[in-house]
């Protein structure tokens, strides 16, 4: 695979303090364009906090973030998404009472310029159907197209979330535990899906399943107690005694 050496996303010295509690301390992250990068670490290491800072749902107390050479530290979350840095959430983020088709169309509406028209019938949205159905088929949800998202099984909801995210055709995806709470079969399916969509994109994902990480990711960053413990390929990182200790330590808890 062609890997571009320039970082698409660069976080330097980002720190998050909540009333004196330092959740994330002086983290430097550099994500290379076109790679699948994993952020791993024991519970409470601050992975989701890092995600929230990168997508601006939290503003770092200190430090700066650059995306495609542009400083995004002061931007709002919606602006970051508009620049092509789109995230998913740990708890599956769908619009529960809208159908699968509507879920994907919501994402397509903004780029198509069909999100502010209040004087037209929503029938005009049918012109997005073709594109939406293509995305739905890409994640194997064609049989569920007209079902409300709330009625989907858990694994399928995650697939829908990915289809919705892909609808924005983002340059970079941040996936927060895409396999959390999934059965074996679903994990295989979502892994395949992530590999497929990674073509021409950059992916940063938080994941607990180390088997998935070793299988899927080009590079791994280990976070523990809010600080970076190790960074490198899976083999290098997994051989690191400090990483082993951090993981063993939590297993004994």
């Amino acid at each position: 695979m062609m890997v571009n050496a320039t970082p698409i996303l660069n976080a330097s010295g980002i720190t998050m303090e909540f009333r004196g509690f330092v959740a994330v301390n002086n983290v430097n992250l550099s994500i290379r364009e076109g790679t699948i990068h994993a952020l791993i670490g024991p519970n409470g290491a601050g992975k989701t906090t890092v995600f929230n800072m990168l997508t601006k749902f939290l503003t770092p107390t200190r430090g700066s973030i650059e995306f495609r050479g542009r400083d995004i530290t002061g931007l709002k979350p919606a602006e970051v998404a508009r620049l092509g840095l789109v995230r998913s959430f740990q708890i599956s983020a769908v619009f529960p009472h809208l159908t699968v088709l509507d879920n994907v169309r919501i994402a397509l509406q903004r780029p198509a310029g069909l999100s502010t028209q209040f004087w037209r019938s929503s029938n005009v949205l049918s012109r997005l159907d073709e594109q939406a159905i293509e995305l739905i088929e890409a994640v194997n949800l064609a049989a569920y197209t007209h079902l409300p998202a709330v009625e989907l099984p858990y694994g399928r909801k995650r697939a829908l979330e990915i289809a919705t995210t892909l609808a924005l055709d983002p340059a970079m995806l941040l996936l927060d535990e895409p396999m959390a709470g999934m059965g074996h079969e679903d994990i295989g399916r979502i892994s395949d899906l992530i590999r497929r969509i990674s073509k021409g994109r950059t992916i940063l994902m938080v994941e607990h399943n180390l088997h998935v990480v070793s299988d899927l990711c080009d590079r791994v960053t280990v976070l523990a107690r809010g600080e970076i413990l190790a960074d490198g390929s899976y083999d290098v990182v997994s051989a690191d005694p400090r990483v082993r200790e951090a993981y063993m330590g939590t297993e004994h808890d």
Partner: protein
Amino acid sequence: MSVEVQSQPIARQPDLRTLTRLLTALALVGLLAAPFVVYPVLLMSMLCFALFACAFNLLIGYVGLLSFGHATFFGGAAYFTAHAVKVWGWDPLAGILLGVLGAAILGLVVGFLAIRRQGIYFAMITLALGQMFAFICLQVPFTHGEDGIQGVPRGHLLGFIDLNEPLSMYYVTLAIFLFGFFAVWRIVNSPFGNILKAIRENERRAVSLGYRVDRYKLGAFVMSAALAGLAGGTKAIVFQFATLTDVQWQMSGEVILMTLLGGIGTLVGPVVGAAFVIALQNYLASSDFPVTVLIGIIFVVCVLVFRRGVVGELLEFVRRREGRPD
């Protein structure tokens, strides 16, 4: 499994659509014939408040924002329209449009300040700003304080429709109401309305898809305020006055009650709720029974027993009979 779930609504849909069309046609005929059976002023009062409740419902039912200051837009527009028509001698339609514009501008200011907060804080900010506006209305000279603006001439709409004729006035009011009702329906079922639904369903997700949700909420707030203004301006022409009653917080409370009673988030609910409350007030006005006590009791019963409102419960009943899960 999915096949079974999908086939049911598809099979039922034509049924429901014909039923909806039939009911709509019946309602229209009923509204056209009503002034020959019922006292027109009572009907016009119902229509004005029904439109006000529809405007309010656009915000609470489809965006999930509880405004406790909607009297500002209703009563504010009533003052603007009354002043323009009485003092400046404007055409009633132009006066009403001025009321709509004024309400939209007030909505922009109030919405801009309140939209950053959610839930009870949003409600409290709108209430506080509403109280401020009521105080301003008491103080500034053009509203004539406690007296209000009285004796607003109904005049001739567009110069040739004599609104002093009760029937003409009724049909104009009906047209305005239908326009407002259609506007709410259109907004709810538009691409914009789709995004509003998404924001109500999962705001964080909408943000992460790049939607500046504050702007969408503000947009809906201004539209709601403008439609409330349409109701208020029309009311000023119908009743020929604008007073402090229309801008005070009790009016904001009344519209909440009407919407809740009829069914939040249903299109027809606010109309039913408004018609019921106005009919009750009218009926009890001649008796010694205190209206507020009875309305209080109804409110409590509504919240305890049928939380979805009359129309909401009815729809739920139909849905359950169709065998669809909640």
